[in-house]
Each structure stands twice: as C-alpha cells, then as structure tokens.
C-alpha cells in the first residue's frame, strides 16, 4: 500500500467514526443555523424599537412565528456527543443542568406564545410583549452560552 493510499485509508476511517457529526444534520450546525435565523428575525423588531425602521405588524408577527418554530425545535439539538467541537458556543451547563436549560427554553417559548396571542398592532403594543422574549434570549445566553472571543 502506497503512502498516499494509507493516508486516505486513515482519512476514510476517521470519517467513518465522525461522519454523523460531519454530515448536514450535525446538531451543532443545525442549532447554530437556527439561532442565526432567530437573530435575523429579531433584528427588524429591534430596528423598529430603535426608531430606525417603520413599524410593520406583519413583519413583527412573522418574526414571532420564526421564534415559535425555533423554540419548538431547539431543545432537541443538544444530544450527548455534541458538547464540543465545530466552534460550538454551547456551554457545558446545558448538559450539567438540563432541567435549568429546559426551564430557560420554556421561558422563551412562553414569552413567544404570549406575544403571538397578543397580535400587537402598534409599536407601543409590541414593546411589552417583545421585551420578555428578548430578556429570555439574554438570560439563557448568560447561563448557557460560552463566549467565542
């Protein structure tokens, strides 16, 4: 077996062991993408709150729906084995204190449900329902996300 071949063999073996995590369904990638989407959806609401963008009830509701879908999926994306690697920012606390993490997620998802039910039609109506959602983002990141500096 040539040197090159033995190297590719090693690569193939390595791939065989890690492939579930290298494929597109790597939970570390999935949860990252999901969070990016949540951030993108939060942005227009933030811009409206900052006065940089005209209020649009439809856009606000679309963002709330995005949060809702993400909240429903998010909890399943932290299986054992996905604690580290791929630049994950998930903190060990997620696995060490799963109950606390689930509570934090529920706080977020409850705030989203309440916001959807409220169907805000003005910026003034949006503020009090968006506030708890954003606080939940921050609260959970504070305890369950590590810094990527």
């Amino acid at each position, binding site marked *: 077996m040539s040197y090159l071949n033995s190297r590719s063999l090693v690569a193939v073996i390595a791939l065989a062991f890690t492939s579930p995590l290298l494929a597109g369904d790597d939970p570390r990638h999935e949860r990252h993408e999901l969070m990016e989407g949540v951030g993108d959806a939060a*942005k227009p609401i933030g811009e409206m709150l*900052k006065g940089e963008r005209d209020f649009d009830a439809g856009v606000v509701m679309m963002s709330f729906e995005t949060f809702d879908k993400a909240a429903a999926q998010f909890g399943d994306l932290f299986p054992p084995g996905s604690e580290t690697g791929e630049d994950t920012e998930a903190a060990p606390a997620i696995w060490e204190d799963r109950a606390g993490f689930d509570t934090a997620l529920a706080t977020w998802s409850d705030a989203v449900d309440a916001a959807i039910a409220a169907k805000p039609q003005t910026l003034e109506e949006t503020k009090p329902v968006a506030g708890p959602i954003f606080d939940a983002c921050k609260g959970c990141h504070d305890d369950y996300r590590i*810094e990527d500096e």
Partner: protein
Amino acid sequence: MLISRILRGGVVVLVVAAVAAWWITRPQMIAAADLPDHRPDPVAGERIFWAAGCASCHARPVNGKRAKGDDKLLLGGGLELDTPYGVFRVPNISPHANDGIGEWTPAEFVNAMQRGVSPDGRHYYPSFPYTSYARMPIGDVLDLKAYLDTLPPVSGRIEAHSLGFPWSVRRGVGAWKRLYLVTEPMAPGASPTLVERGRLLVEGAGHCGECHTPRDRFGGLIRDRWLAGAPNPEGKGRVPNITPGGENISEWSAADIAYYLESGFTPDFDTVGGSMVAVQENMARLSADDRAAIAAYLQALPALH
C-alpha cells in the same frame, strides 16, 4: 579603615534610599476641610451606583454565581478575582458598622474612592478602580456614599488578598500611584455638553478604561491606547476596541451603542456576553440621556486600530 568608610557610606546611601522610598510611597490624601460644601443626595447617588458598577464586584455571590436582581444591593463582598498578580478578594462595602463601611466619614470614603487610601492610611490595590473614580466630581462621590448608606447592612468580613511578590508589598502601590493615578481627562478636546457628560461617565464612574485599555508591564494604563481594546484580564480572548476604529463598533451608530447598553443587543441582534453582561445590566439602569452621552463620547474619540 577604607572598608569601614565604604560600609558607612553604603549604610548612608541605604538609609537615604529607604527614606526616599518611604516618602515617595506615602499615601496622598484629600483633607476633610477641602471637601466641597455639598448636601449629599441619595437619589442622585443611585445613578452613580449603577454607573460605577459597584454591585458587579461587591454584591455577595449567590450560590457561587453573580448576584441578580435585588441581591445586587447586598454588598457583602466575597467575589474572588483570579488575576496574574494573585487572588483579590472583594471586601464588604455594605453599611454594616463593623464588617462594612457604615462608620466611614465622608472624607474617608472620598479618599478610598479617589485616592485609593483606606481609613487607616494604607494603599488599596488598583483592582479597585480608584484610578478611574478619581475623575468623578466629588459631589457624585458624596451622593454615592449617601445612597450606599440606605442599603441593607451585610455581616461578615472578607479574607485578605493572596498576592505574589512583589505585588504583596502594599506600600509599593504608592510608587505605582505616582505614575498612574492621574485625574486629568484621558480624551480631552471638543467638549460639547453631551460628550462631557459621557466623558465623566466613561472615564470616571463607569471605569470603562480599566478593561478596554491595555496595560503596560507595571499594570498601568497605556494612555495612547485609550479604549483601543486589551487582553481579557479574566481569561482568554480580548476585550474589544470601543473607539470608532474598533472592528465591530465602527459600524455602529450612536443609537446602536445606546440601545446595546440599554438592551444588551448588538445591531446584529446578538446578545452581550462575558463580563460585559453585568456592566450592561448596570448601564440599563441609567437614563436614556446618560446612555446617549456615553455613545456620543465614544463616537467623539480618536479612531484607533
């Protein structure tokens, strides 16, 4: 004969050096008589309390985690700062008569805050950011004392710091202060009212420079690199450059900076992280005008890269 003369000369030199060292390192104080005539206002002091971030270090940790909500008002100390110099243990500054600072006079409090000198005449280490607080108006310091006096007393004294040599020689801090305890503005220049208000908050109470400015080998701030980012004193990574030349902040509007300080969200809707979480939560307690002033000051800084 010659040898004994050399020896005697050597002793004289040593004594002169010791006296000079003692003189140089002696605490510099503000006399009680020099305090301005100021009626302390605890309500104004609450603003200073949040701006100065007192609770971020002095609030007693709850179950090993930093205090949140009303627990931030229990200033029993006990947080440990693990630094390259050793472990600093944050003291009790609650108004408890024995264990806290309840018995301190206004002059003692001002000298602690602005000269880094304890009531018994010892130097504080600059882990307590008196180098920044020295730029606060004295009236603000007196208001802060009035506010602290309204908080609940917490019992319990905190153990002394455990520092390595030469940092363990507390008297040496006196020499350090000669070099680094400066009260003039870091970024003087055009001072429209809003920028000046922001300067007092950023350079004084807010003590932003303590983490966002790099330090020289003696732990003094490098003035030329004011707020241009520095290694994280608490571990890996860097504390970002927050001058208009900073990698991320250069894209931010003044409204973005103010909104970040209020809500904890960046313009990309990422959330604040690390030690900045506690700082941002303090800034959220200030008025919108104060946050706008901080943003105006930061945007008026020279852009460093």
